């Protein structure tokens, strides 16, 4: 069993630990994951020392196992994040996040003249055309969205 101290915050019994989140991005991560929900307690650690990354953030979600598919979208802002599934205090599964080919609904198009920035009942869709650094293309207006555009959107949070 891994020593819980390594994670710097109180261990969870059952649930998910998202580790190696880019420092100071934990709040954005939980926003993207639409957490906390009613059922799950969420613990956040920010700017924790990391031998691999210098410093990192950690998010722990008690009582909910996130499948890698539903977490992949956080790769937009935390490309090195790892997902640990915990059962009875033990890590039973470990995986990395992979940016999906399409991002739905999370982002707003930076083009003010895009149809998605109106009152029309339309969801945003972006296809990932470049992964490192990330470049997206709006499905509707075909404009390019860069890493800077993405980060600007999460700044307000």
């Amino acid at each position, binding site marked *: 069993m891994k020593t819980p101290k390594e994670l710097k915050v109180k261990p969870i019994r059952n649930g998910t630990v998202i580790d190696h989140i880019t420092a100071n991005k934990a709040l954005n991560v939980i926003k993207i994951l639409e957490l906390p929900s009613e059922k799950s307690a969420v613990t956040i650690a920010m700017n924790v020392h990391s031998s691999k990354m210098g410093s990192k953030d950690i998010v722990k979600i008690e009582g909910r196992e996130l499948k890698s598919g539903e977490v992949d979208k956080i790769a937009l802002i935390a490309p090195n994040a790892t997902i640990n599934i915990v059962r009875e205090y033990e890590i039973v599964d470990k995986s990395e996040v992979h940016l999906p080919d399409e991002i739905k609904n999370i982002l707003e198009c930076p083009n003010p003249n*895009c*149809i998605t920035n*109106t009152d029309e*009942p339309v969801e945003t869709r972006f296809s990932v055309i470049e992964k490192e650094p990330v470049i997206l293309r*709006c499905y*509707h*207006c*075909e404009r390019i969205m860069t890493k800077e555009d993405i980060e600007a959107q999460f700044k307000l949070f």
Partner: protein
Amino acid sequence: MVVNHQKDIISIKDLSKKDIDYILKVAEKMEPIARSKKRSTVLGGKMLGMLFYEPSTRTRISFETAMKRLGGSTIGFLEAGVSSATKGENLHDTAKIISEYADAIVIRHNMEGAARYVADSVDVPVINAGDGAGQHPTQTLLDLYTMKRIVGKTKDLHVSLVGDLKYGRTVHSLAYALAMFGVDMSFISPRELRMPKDVLHDLSKLGVSVEETENINSVLDKSDVLYVTRIQKERFPDPEEYSKIKDAYMIDLKLLKGTDLIVMHPLPRVNEIAYEVDNTPYGRYFEQAFYGVPVRMAILDLLIKNSEEI
């Protein structure tokens, strides 16, 4: 569509080279009908819904002519001012209602992505007739058709795009389509109005060689086509700067003398092509505008007939 099972024509990027070739081939068959030398009723009883949220007389008349030459008719509104569009009904609901009446929809809208959105919202085929600064694929197709008809080829061409290459949406899609056909291009523009980087990036991926220059004289000898676009005064804060550039890119007979190229323009022109060019073998922009009719006939025929087969 028949070739690629496309329901709609929204962006030139949705079409393969094979799709484009097919549309141009059908357009050729449509030409005698467009010129009133033959009659057709292939779309008899069919209805084209026109959603023109922005005035664009030339595009609208071209589509209307195409539909009527094939025996069909048109419904819809031509400017937001005469419809519920101003009373706050959203685009989604308006398009839904028209789609219940019409066999296909043509939409012109001031917002980018509007046509894609409508295409996803309705079951009938949708044709994008211009969405803001976005796409206008039938313009690109008629440009290609014009080159094919007049120069006689879409291979081994050299096309020079002149003018506002930054904001002019027609040149972006045209450059992309030409690159699909492996056509080498020269881009001639003032420094401030150069082809955007993401367009250049797309072109380099398609493996064609492009040259960027500010000097129009340097490309005349190698060009088969000079595709001219308007440089808008508003792009230049300094009126003196604008007038210098305007003169440097003015196309007149003195410039064209001794060359073996054709001049195209998406129209309307303001003063970038001298009137003296109009009735010479160089000036082909009115012919180009006419070719919009057979090309749109081909598209309407392919899309509407296809919807019958499903």
